[in-house]
């Protein structure tokens, strides 16, 4: 895997002429973005991150910065490396180079087991629910890292454990209510229709009130109505908790409506970062999408 990466590392910026908006995002003017562009205010900062599987480069030399309250979309064609990037940020993949800063801490490899404690939550492109647990229990499990009561206290029902269970239950009920899952709260999550399962996953991620929320195609395979609802949920999540949100999404219309900034990946390289309008007008992006972005934008305008 090393040889495959070396050429990438030796010529980070020089290999492919990057469009102007693809300069290091931390140095970009604030135009249209979140107000927190200085490093201190960043919730997530990915710096020169590279990952290859054997000879396959998943992504290389990725820079990306997300501030509190910002919705940052990551788009790109299939296989561009979007999911791999999120998997690396959540510690499921070990990148070969670069760092990930979450809040004040920097990692060469993010410890997956500490992620929730760091205030990070995510959803998965392919559902990763606890199929045998009820919807309520799935949402409750999002609070696993916040649990303090020991096993003995839980089994004996000691006051501290009961208070905690009650508080967690209230938090879960609130999320279930907000996401309109009340009617199915007692059903096993695995038996729900796909769109609802996606929603349960969002609930499991939201219940811990994360500072950083990573959503991998939360609307894939949804109907237009479901997409509109999900868009509303994501926007509301930003409004209520001020979380930084990284959103992978293929629907350009949704991306344009929802995000503050957009990063475009193509073949594992970042080819553009900027506001939705900037990115949409970027020739490199248009080339990567073979004009798809253009048509979508027209459809949007119409």
């Amino acid at each position: 895997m090393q040889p495959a990466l070396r050429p990438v590392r030796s010529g980070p910026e020089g290999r492919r002429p990057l469009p102007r908006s693809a300069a290091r995002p931390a140095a970009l003017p604030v135009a249209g973005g979140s107000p927190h562009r200085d490093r201190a205010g960043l919730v997530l900062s990915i710096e020169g991150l590279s990952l290859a599987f054997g000879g396959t480069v998943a992504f290389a030399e990725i820079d990306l910065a997300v501030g509190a309250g910002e919705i940052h979309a990551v788009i790109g064609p299939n296989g561009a490396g979007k999911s791999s990037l999120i998997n690396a940020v959540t510690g499921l993949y070990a990148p070969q180079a670069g760092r990930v800063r979450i809040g004040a801490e920097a990692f060469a490899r993010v410890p997956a087991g500490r992620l929730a404690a760091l205030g990070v939550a995510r959803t998965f492109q392919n559902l990763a629910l606890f199929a045998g647990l009820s919807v309520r229990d799935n949402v409750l499990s999002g609070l696993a890292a916040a649990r303090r009561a020991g096993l003995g206290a839980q089994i004996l029902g000691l006051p501290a454990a009961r208070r905690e269970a009650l508080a967690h239950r209230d938090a879960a009920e609130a999320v279930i209510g907000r996401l309109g899952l009340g009617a199915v709260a007692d059903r096993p999550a695995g038996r729900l229709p796909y769109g609802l399962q996606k929603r349960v996953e969002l609930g499991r991620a939201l219940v811990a009130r994360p500072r950083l929320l990573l959503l991998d195609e939360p609307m894939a395979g949804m109907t237009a109505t479901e997409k509109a609802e999900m868009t509303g949920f994501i926007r509301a999540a930003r409004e209520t908790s001020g979380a930084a949100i990284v959103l992978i999404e293929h629907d350009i219309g949704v991306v344009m409506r929802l995000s503050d900034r957009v990063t475009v990946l193509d073949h594992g390289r970042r080819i553009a970062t900027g506001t939705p309008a900037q990115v949409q007008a970027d020739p490199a992006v248009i080339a990567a999408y073979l004009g798809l972005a253009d048509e979508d934008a027209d459809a949007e305008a119409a």
Partner: protein
Amino acid sequence: MDALPLAAPRPRPSAGVLGLAALLVLAYGIVPLTGTSYLFEALLTPFLALALAGLGLNLLTGYAGLLSLGSAAFMAVGAYAAFNLSLRLPFLPLPAAILLGGLVAALAGLVAGLPALRLRGFYLAVSTLAVQFFVAWALNRIGWISNDSPSGIITAPGLVVAGLSFDDPRGRYLFSLSVVTLLTVLAWRLVASPTGRNLVAIRDNETAARLVGVKVARTKLLAFAVSSFVIGIAGALWAFAYLRTVEPAGFNLDRSFQILFIVIIGGLGTLRGAFLGAGFIAVLPLLLSRLGAAVLGDGFDSGTLEMVQRMVLGALIVAVLIREPAGLAALLDRAGRRLGRRAA
């Protein structure tokens, strides 16, 4: 259920709670008064011990999704540890010896669970199989464990608790029933607790469980320890209350498979599955042999009868699992729902 069954406002006791109460009245009130020695000795006491072992294995395999073929080994550890503790520390009351025996089994489970941090599925099952063989080997080779008895068979101490003797068929049944009831309540509290939720989370999606903050390694070891504790106590019941001897043959690989069958046929990941499965596996052969004797007459060759019995049992297991892969518990649920609909 949550962790607060007492505090949570409940509209009215559900059918499940009423059924459970009825079952306890039956088990504690009616059966001891009307049952025969044969019922206690040949049916109910072994049923209870096997159900408890199934309950323990279900915590590990059904809830946490960790496959084990070493149940009989943990039963043996529990039984032999309880035996040695009561033999060598005569001042120890019997319940304490059994409890400590369970704790020794839990410790063994903890060690046996270490490979689970690396292995899963089939490979984990093979590593628990190694535990099974190791324990069988140790029982045969280390005479001290069976108090240097030449046959390896030792007589279990009598069931006396606080001066009260439980040393008759009905007493042994009541003793087993009490232990099983207590541990079932604890297991129910466990699976209803946040920790129980974590067990299922690891089973259903280990990656997601880790990311939401479940301590995966710790929880897996806990599952092994708690499961082995329960199975160890089931082993002590098997030896002390049912066989009244402690012998390696009672804890061989066949027993491990039997307990796995109990869990699978009863229903993985449900507490009542262990009881349904144990009922099926323990009671059915007896019924079948009685039926065989009645139909074919006493002169029938007992070896053939046993073989026919096994085949019928196997066919029934396959039939149940084809009809309902989630086991008898799910079958019963469905029947219950159908009845409810008809009544409504």
